[in-house]
């Protein structure tokens, strides 16, 4: 299983629809300061269900919606879709590919979709947990947060082992 693609529209600095195709193996993302690399990391974390704005470097969840640039207005909503290869059926669904979508609009409407159909976060979280994907697994190390594990309390570090057991 691997992450096949990520599509973003109106998410942080990605005003226009963009799709990134990833390869199995090592993908290196490069670009100037402020170009949007860490926003891609935030998009992956957001579509997998992150609930705290602070974990997305934002004050409130609405801040993830494109706020406008010098020659374009703010977006009304934000939508991110991640497509996972499921050939080995690691996700317990009878599908070769699994698409997960999250959307949020300024009017407050928000939701998740699994292969185009509405679903609840709780259903999604269970599915992802089985496949060891997601936030609790420390599989997403955001910029500047590598050391956090060393400064954590010894009892919190134990929790990392518990999550992995």
């Amino acid at each position, binding site marked *: 299983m691997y992450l096949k693609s990520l599509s973003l529209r109106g998410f942080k600095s990605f005003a226009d629809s963009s799709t990134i195709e990833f390869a199995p193996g090592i993908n290196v993302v490069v670009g*100037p300061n402020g170009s949007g690399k860490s926003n891609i990391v935030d998009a992956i974390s957001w579509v997998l269900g992150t609930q705290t704005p602070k974990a997305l470097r934002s004050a409130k969840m609405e801040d993830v919606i494109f706020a406008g640039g010098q*020659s*374009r207005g703010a977006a009304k909503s934000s939508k991110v879709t991640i497509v996972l290869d499921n050939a080995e059926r690691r996700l317990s669904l009878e599908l070769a590919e699994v698409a997960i979508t999250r959307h949020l609009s300024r009017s407050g409407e928000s939701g998740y979709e699994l292969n185009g159909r509405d679903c609840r976060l709780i259903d999604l979280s269970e599915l992802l947990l089985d496949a060891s994907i997601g936030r609790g697994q420390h599989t997403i190390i955001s910029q500047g947060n590598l050391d956090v594990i060393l400064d954590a309390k010894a009892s919190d570090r*134990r929790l*990392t082992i518990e999550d992995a057991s």
Partner: protein
Amino acid sequence: MKEVFLSAYRDIDNNFRETFELLFPGGRGSLVLTDQDNPLEAGLEFDISIPGKTLRRLPLLSGGERSLVALGFLFAVFRSRPSPFYVLDEVEAALDDLNLSRLLVLLESFGSHAQLIVISHQKRTMEIANRLIGVSMAESGSSKVVIENLKARQLTLSSQD
């Protein structure tokens, strides 16, 4: 529950010892439970020894040494409970050339059986990519993405072992 936890702990501790040896050749690192009798309440400490130094306490480590210990621990956890993909955002910023090489060896060994998405400004990190993804900011304040297939290298993604 206790047994499951202890088996995960032993597995991660073993992995940590191996990964630590790779990142700090000649050094020794292990994970210690502060209360062996009561593992589910215990804390987890790092017991490390870097070649030439006697210090064991974490705060005295240098910036680069801290990055390496943290990476060693994370990859020990990743190895024990494999995930389909990992995302690393500029984790090598504090490393010198020699330690960067050691990390790249670790990343390449992982990349043969797991997917890595690595954000970096370092040229040497770009060189190990199977795919290079360029991001730029257009005049209008919107990000654009350009993808470049760096290597034709056939990647036989072996099943998660």
